[in-house]
């Protein structure tokens, strides 16, 4: 694995692989996750969930559960606010407990709080619910039909969102194209599978609600929980504990918080709720299965002239973040290749299945699989090399997409060339033995979202840094949320760099709505860029104050004074130096606390058409991924032996963490490509809501990965940074599908690429 090639030698702290700030805590087990925490007088909460995919609740009898010794509260919809919540403001459609109908197997019906887990579990079995079972909607392709049952009265024909975006003249472009293809692809309902389940502990004291939880966004939790319970935001404090993975699934409050809060209010005691694995799967909010039809036209030379993308997207029972997911599906298609004429028609529909939401790459990975597959098919039709057709169409820097995303830095062509080079593409393509193949897939992603999820004028990130009175350390207060990806470490490096002190000098207070400045949290690959700007600004404010005082103390002009790793010096006068701590200490004595403040709000981005904000970002990453596979033609089993990923992610802050993000994203993409799909029986009951039958790749399954970079600097990012955490998920499915085609000449149109599916395709090929 190569070190960052973009490392700028001028920097002292960024660009270096410092160990994570919490590495020791996690390696030794000292890190306490929500589930590990016990507080005095704490009760254990459990949620009773629907066994039916679609049913009317006729009667709930809680008397037997209430009579069980050790049970402190049993609550149903009548005990809690009926305010609808969600995370897409246009579609709040969930309540704490189902009021009239349950809409999926796992929907929340009632809850108990008891002195221990065992009693709470037993109490659940004593709640008697009478249901009238209704026919469920299970097939997204039929959900809009007139004969289908309706899930929500406010969404006729089960349409959650309908999208029509049209840029340029696609019909004309396709009519004039030399070659046009229409192909249909589909993806599956994959889930985030964080190792740590969703969990929350709520305390209700003197009219104030305090929730410690596993979250990607204390801010959104605070906002929605305050709204639902009718509390001032200031009376709701949300604190993140250590988080064992989020991947999009912990961006919205899951019910663990709402229900534990309601139980805490009712009992006056702290209440903890930890989901079990079945609950994590059925709560879901992960990938939407998409049915994607692409019609794409090219010139004789292979230049893309237009594309029409049509989607039917299975949203499951509730909206969750699905409006954004549906817009992302189409919005990200024209990002990485340059063409002007683009149309996107989409329907997100409701089914009586687990609700879909945001998952690493959001709505973009499945459409990207479709596009990358079709582009290879077009290249074959034209007799072109797959990398050549991508180079020909690759986006250039300082251009705008047809849907008005401004792209500044873009080293996509360089990434393609490097991927070709390090994978040995030219020596391998078409020259490997008959069971081996090589394929390419590409991707691009946002570096933070241009707009918050709800309408607000709040900046997206804030930061405060306070230097200690002795000047020995500096504490960074940030609302940014480390969920394992390493944002605390990266932001500490940026803070140290901006001030001019060492990484080890930075202490952190993070992700607590009461003690840290506002930040929207860990989603949309936003924190390195957005929280990073706020931190950099705060650090520079300290640097400026320190250097001004130092100039006085050194009797020098302020513009001649500088700082590097705690040493303040006068340029050109090597004997005139002061240690940082002396100046900082003097600052406190003379002027009071040494504090720096920063905030970041993105500039106004995007067009004026409906849905224009989704996909806007200050900066975009690009990636090219080459995969090599071996296929066992007799069983259909595919072994991915090698993957070469080349990412254009701007300036690197911590190379070790960056490559870890690439690997993690790639392996998640691999899971979606090869193994993962939630499956249900004919009544909508999940058949594999466990880690045995929902298979994610293990260490034995993953390929050898080479993660490499291209030189890149993003003017819209602090120090030149952009995205990495999600982008490497995007190319993988297409890259694998294309490699399989190269190996054995079969094209798989639907995910995942299971052995049986590959074997069936081989049988089909043999019959033809």
């Amino acid at each position, binding site marked *: 694995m190569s070190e960052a090639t973009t490392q700028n030698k001028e920097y002292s702290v960024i660009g270096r692989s410092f160990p994570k700030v919490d590495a020791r805590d996690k390696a030794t087990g000292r890190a306490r996750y929500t589930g590990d925490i016990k507080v005095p007088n704490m009760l254990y909460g459990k949620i009773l969930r629907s066994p039916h995919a679609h049913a009317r609740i006729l009667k709930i009898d809680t008397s037997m559960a209430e009579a069980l010794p050790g049970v402190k509260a049993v609550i149903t919809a009548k005990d809690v606010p009926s305010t609808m919540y969600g995370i897409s403001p246009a579609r709040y459609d969930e309540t704490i407990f189902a009021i009239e109908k349950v809409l999926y197997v796992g929907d929340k019906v009632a809850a108990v709080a008891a002195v221990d887990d065992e009693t709470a579990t037993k109490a659940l079995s004593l709640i008697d619910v009478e249901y009238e079972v209704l026919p469920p909607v299970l097939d997204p392709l039929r959900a809009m039909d007139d004969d289908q049952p309706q899930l929500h009265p406010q969404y006729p024909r089960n349409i959650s969102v309908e999208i029509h975006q049209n840029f340029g003249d696609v019909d004309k472009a396709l009519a004039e194209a030399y070659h046009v293809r229409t192909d249909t692809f589909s993806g599956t309902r994959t889930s985030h599978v964080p190792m740590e389940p969703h969990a929350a502990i709520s305390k209700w004291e003197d009219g104030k609600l305090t929730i410690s939880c596993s979250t990607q966004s204390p801010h959104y939790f605070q906002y929605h929980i305050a709204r639902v319970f009718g509390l001032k935001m200031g009376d709701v404090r949300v604190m993140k504990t250590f988080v064992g993975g989020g991947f999009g699934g912990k961006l919205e409050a899951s019910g663990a918080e709402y229900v534990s809060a309601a139980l805490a209010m009712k009992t006056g005691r702290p209440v903890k709720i930890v989901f079990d694995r079945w609950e994590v799967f059925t709560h879901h909010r992960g990938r939407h299965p998409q049915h994607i039809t692409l019609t794409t036209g090219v010139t004789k030379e292979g230049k893309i002239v237009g594309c029409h993308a049509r989607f039917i997207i299975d949203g499951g029972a509730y909206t969750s973040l699905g409006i954004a997911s549906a817009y992302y599906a189409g919005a990200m298609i024209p990002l990485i290749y340059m063409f002007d004429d683009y149309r996107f028609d989409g329907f997100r529909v409701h089914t009586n299945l687990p609700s879909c939401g945001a998952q690493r790459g959001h709505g973009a990975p499945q459409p990207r699989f479709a596009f990358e597959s079709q582009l290879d098919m077009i290249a074959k039709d034209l007799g072109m090399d797959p990398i050549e057709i991508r180079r020909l169409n690759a986006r250039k820097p300082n251009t705008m997409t047809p849907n008005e995303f401004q792209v500044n830095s873009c080293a996509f062509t360089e990434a393609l060339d490097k991927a070709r080079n390090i994978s040995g593409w030219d020596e391998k393509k078409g020259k490997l033995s008959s069971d081996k193949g090589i394929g390419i897939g590409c991707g691009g992603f946002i570096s933070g979202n241009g707009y918050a999820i709800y309408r607000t004028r709040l900046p997206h990130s804030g930061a405060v840094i306070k230097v200690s009175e002795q000047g020995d350390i500096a504490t960074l207060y940030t609302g940014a949320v480390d969920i394992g990806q390493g944002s605390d470490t990266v932001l500490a490096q940026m803070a140290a760099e901006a001030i001019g002190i060492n990484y080890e000098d930075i202490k952190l207070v993070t992700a607590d709505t009461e003690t840290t400045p506002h930040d929207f949290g860990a989603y949309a690959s936003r924190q390195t860029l957005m929280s990073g700007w706020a931190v950099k600004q705060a650090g520079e404010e300290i640097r400026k104050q320190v250097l001004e005082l130092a100039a006085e103390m050194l009797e020098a002009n302020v513009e001649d004074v500088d700082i590097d790793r705690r040493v303040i010096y006068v340029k050109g006068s090597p004997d005139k130096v002061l240690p940082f701590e002396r100046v900082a200490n003097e600052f406190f004595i003379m002027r009071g606390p040494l504090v720096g403040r920063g905030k970041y709000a993105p500039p106004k981005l995007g067009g004026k058409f409906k849905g224009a904000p989704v996909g806007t970002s200050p900066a975009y990453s690009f990636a090219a991924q080459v995969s090599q596979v071996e296929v066992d033609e007799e069983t259909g089993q595919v072994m991915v032996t090698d993957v070469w990923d080349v990412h254009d992610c701007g300036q690197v802050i911590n190379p070790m963490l960056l490559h870890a993000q690439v690997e993690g994203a790639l392996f998640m993409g691999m899971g979606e490509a090869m193994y993962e799909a939630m499956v249900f029986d004919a009544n909508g009951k999940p058949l594999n809501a466990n880690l045995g039958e929902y298979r994610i790749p*293990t260490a034995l*399954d993953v390929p050898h990965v080479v993660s490499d970079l291209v030189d890149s600097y993003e003017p819209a990012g602090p120090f030149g940074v952009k995205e990495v955490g999600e982008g490497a998920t995007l190319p993988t499915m297409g890259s694998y599908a294309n490699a399989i085609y190269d190996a054995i000449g079969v094209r798989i149109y639907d995910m995942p690429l299971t052995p049986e599916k590959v074997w069936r395709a081989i049988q089909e090929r043999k019959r033809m």
Partner: protein
Amino acid sequence: MIVPQFEYLVPQSLQEACALLGQHGSKAKVLSGGSDLIVKMKNGLAKPDYLVSLKNLDELKGVRYEAGTGVIIGSRTTHNQVIANPILREKYPSVCAAAATMAAYQIRNIGTIGGNLVNAVPSADMPPILIALGAQARIVGTAGERVVRVEDFFLGPGRTVLGQDEILAELVIPDQATTGSNYVKFGLRRAGALAVVGVASSVTMAGDVAKDVRIILGAVAPIPMVAREAENVLRGKKVSDDLIQHAGKVAAVESKPINDIRGSAEYRRNLVDVLTRRSLKAAIEKGHV
């Protein structure tokens, strides 16, 4: 996930264990590694009032060789102990290899070979290879001891010949006339995956002639299945690629797979064909002794 309430009994001898099982009847279950039972209990699929732990019965642990009898494997021997055992590694590496296909390292540290048989899951990895080697099960009950062939041990999914007061004590792999054996598993992931199909075979070669052949199929019938017709294709014949091909086809036809979330019956038949050929080839070419 909460394990329901139960009473935990820790007998100090095999006889005491059998007596406890007899006393509590169907309300009691034997706890060995617990890698299957405890999961079932957490999921509400088993609700025993009593768990009879074998943890203090050291006589059920370990592997030894007795001349004239064969290799004796205690039922409480963990999968990882099977994998690492020098006697098995020398005499029957195919048994070690079969154990190594199971679950994940941590689970192999807990799960036992006896448990793998007694649970009687159709996809279990140890029964096919043990049957292929003609292994026998030593069963101890309150009335004494009896021996049955592993081939005859299973009655259906989750059902075995064990009586209410009986415990599987040991497995005996008799000295072999066979010259090679092998287990090939097809799972949907390289670790932590149940067999979609598993095929074990053993052959007794005399020059080019297969004097005897055993082919045992896992996960394609309610119990581990002997592919008798496929065995007959090769038995007593001069081995050739064509004949092995044919045996694979015959095994596929006689297998009785079902459709489930891990694979269709049609695909499983194909896997039986492919895996039977591969297992036979390896057993013929590589041997086990």
